[in-house]
């Protein structure tokens, strides 16, 4: 008796699922895999904002799902879960998903995969990342102008090329308006740990830095900066709400235009695997509204951003001097190549530290 009732419940539940699946057969299912919680208000949050923007823009044509808090070394299953449940386009948003994405992609040739911040592609795996360093150059200029102690503080996460390139672009921007400027870097060894990030900011402030910038995800460094009455920059999302008096601007990762473009490509059948390294020109990076800075600095920042956007100014325009003072190899004579930027593991002149190995 109980068994029959159970089977009935099971059958009706399955029927319900099948019916709803049939109903949804028209829509394109797009899946997202996040390494952190959507509520981090930083990196994963911004990817989710991109997802929401894409859902809004494409309305009835798509249905989006996400799985959050997926550890990189245990991600094959989650990615495959999405592939198996009818998702035809899957975005895996962290570097550590690279090999798992490729493995699952091999098993599901009909599904398209997009891997963020990686470098390996296949026929159905594309890669994409943003030229965050362009934003860094602009805020570097602002920092150079606004600092009174000529000491800038940097709360960094891990010494990977993206972060190192960011530091270099930042200091180059600062040096372009203030050659005497110095930067102090702390490696927090985490992408997200508010307490530790706050402590790092405190240490930098105690050591004389009066402008704090970060490549970690929480709003903690900015809050500390505001507490100390100093100024700083937010990361990944607009964190002004956390520190309205301290945030001058924030580098915002804006994935929405990319997500819309790629989803449309799948809908149209024109999707192809490629590598996208988008910057301010395609609005993958933009800066949050400026605040707490005088008008002339604001104007300078806007002009620099516009120049970068129009490709008239390159943050790594040659000659770029290495820590030893010698110019770094510059093939086309104009600027460092994308490849050089995405594998950067050296500091430019003016930074006294060494890159941690």
């Amino acid at each position, binding site marked *: 008796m109980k068994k029959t009732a159970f089977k009935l*419940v*099971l059958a009706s*539940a*399955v029927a*319900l*699922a099948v019916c709803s699946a049939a109903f949804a057969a028209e829509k394109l299912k797009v*899946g997202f895999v996040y390494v952190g*919680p959507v509520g981090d208000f930083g990196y994963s949050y911004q990817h989710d904002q991109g997802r929401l923007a894409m859902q809004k823009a494409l309305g009835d044509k798509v249905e989006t*799902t*996400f*799985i*959050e*808090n*997926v*550890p*990189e*070394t*245990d991600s*094959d*299953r*989650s990615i*495959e*879960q*999405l592939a*198996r*449940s009818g998702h035809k386009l899957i975005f895996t948003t962290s*570097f*550590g998903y690279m*090999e798992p994405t490729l*493995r699952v992609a091999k*098993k599901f040739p009909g599904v398209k995969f997009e891997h963020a911040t990686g*470098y390996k592609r296949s026929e159905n795996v594309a890669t994409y990342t943003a030229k965050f360093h362009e934003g860094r150059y602009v805020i570097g200029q602002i920092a150079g102008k606004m600092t009174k102690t000529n000491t800038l503080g940097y709360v960094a996460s*891990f*010494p*990977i*090329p993206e972060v190192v390139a960011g530091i270099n672009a930042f200091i180059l921007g600062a040096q372009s308006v203030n050659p005497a400027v110095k930067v102090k870097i702390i490696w927090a*060894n985490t992408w997200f740990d508010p307490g530790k990030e706050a402590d790092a900011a405190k240490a930098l402030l105690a050591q004389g830095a009066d402008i704090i910038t970060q490549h970690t995800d929480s709003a903690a460094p900015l809050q500390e900066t505001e507490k100390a009455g100093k100024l700083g920059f937010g990361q990944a999302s607009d964190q002004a709400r956390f520190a309205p008096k301290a945030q001058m601007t924030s580098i915002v990762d804006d994935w929405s235009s990319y997500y819309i473009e790629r989803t449309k490509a799948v809908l149209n059948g024109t999707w192809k695997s490629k590598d996208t390294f988008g910057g301010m020109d395609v609005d993958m990076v933009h800066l949050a509204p400026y605040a707490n800075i005088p008008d002339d600095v604001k104007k300078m920042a806007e002009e620099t951003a516009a120049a970068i956007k129009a490709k008239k100014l390159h943050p790594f325009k040659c000659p770029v001097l290495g820590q030893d003072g010698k110019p770094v190899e510059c093939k086309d004579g104009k600027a460092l190549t994308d490849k050089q930027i*995405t*594998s*950067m*593991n050296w500091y430019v002149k003016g930074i006294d530290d060494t890159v*941690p*190995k």
Partner: protein
Amino acid sequence: MRIDLEPRPERTLALDIGAPVIALAVAIIFGGLVIWMLGKSPALAFEVYFITPLTESWSLQELMVKACPLVLIAVGLSFCYRANLWNIGAEGQFIMGGLLGGWLAIITHDEAWQDLIGGWWILPAMLVLGAIGGALYALIPALLRVWLGASEILTSLMLVYVAELGLDWLVRGPLKDPNGFNFPQSVVFDDIARLPFLAEGERLHAGVLLALIVALVGAFVFARSIFGFEVRLIGEAPRAARFAGFDDRKLTLAVFAISGALAGLAGICEVAGQIGQLTPKISPGYGFTAIIVAFLGRLSPIGILVAALVLALTYIGGEAAQVELSLPSDMTRAFQGILLMCVLVADTATRYRIRLRFGALA
């Protein structure tokens, strides 16, 4: 109001098996309540969490893959916990095992001499190194406890952080893939350095068989061997054990070595089975989840097998629930906690009659 516990005169088999099942049912009801409060359908959630993963070959395989490290570590922990030694550092031992075994895979990667003398010995050597790495790392808190009386809870826990940082430093430094654009990861292991797959789909790896064997051997050791008897006696009646002449110092070292070896083996199985390379983090907390598995399985290797599968089911079901129902990942964690609490209460119920008495708590 207070709760009085009266020991039951005998343990019946029906209660032994029935209690955890009832506990599971109660936990599911609690979980269903929370889900209903979140505004979702509990019936649908039940189906997605527990039924669907058991109906597909793919998810059944994933179940076993996820349970594999949990079984290996938990069986090892059962040796320590039965002897009242609280090894909380299995996570660190897991990492050390994966690190040592993975190191071998890295230094033998792509070498030309493999064509000459063959690479067949690499994988077995990796597994052995994994076990050795974990065992040695576990001996640190064991020796500190035996020599200095230092709490093994504290030392083994602190060493977890040290192991994590050590792995992080090595993978970002000396063990980094030279052709990897400076990204923090080692080379991808050669096929010869990977655990063979048991089925199509390239997910079910031989580590699963290893876990099964370890569980069976563990059960045998506890039930039939002198050593197993020693371990159980030291835990249940330490005075009697000492009168019987069992040396608790040697025993401490032995159980820690076993626990560490199994955790290290789990580490290298995960690295050579699922991951295929060394990365800054190789464990999503298996060392701690295995502690739960050990208790859910009532410290018995066969119970651990079952408990590991049940817990793996909650993980896989939880991911499916995120996809199908948009249930947050926190729900899975909360449910696992509730499940453990229910099973623990049920365990007490098998050994004691529970009576509620009204009056002062004394």
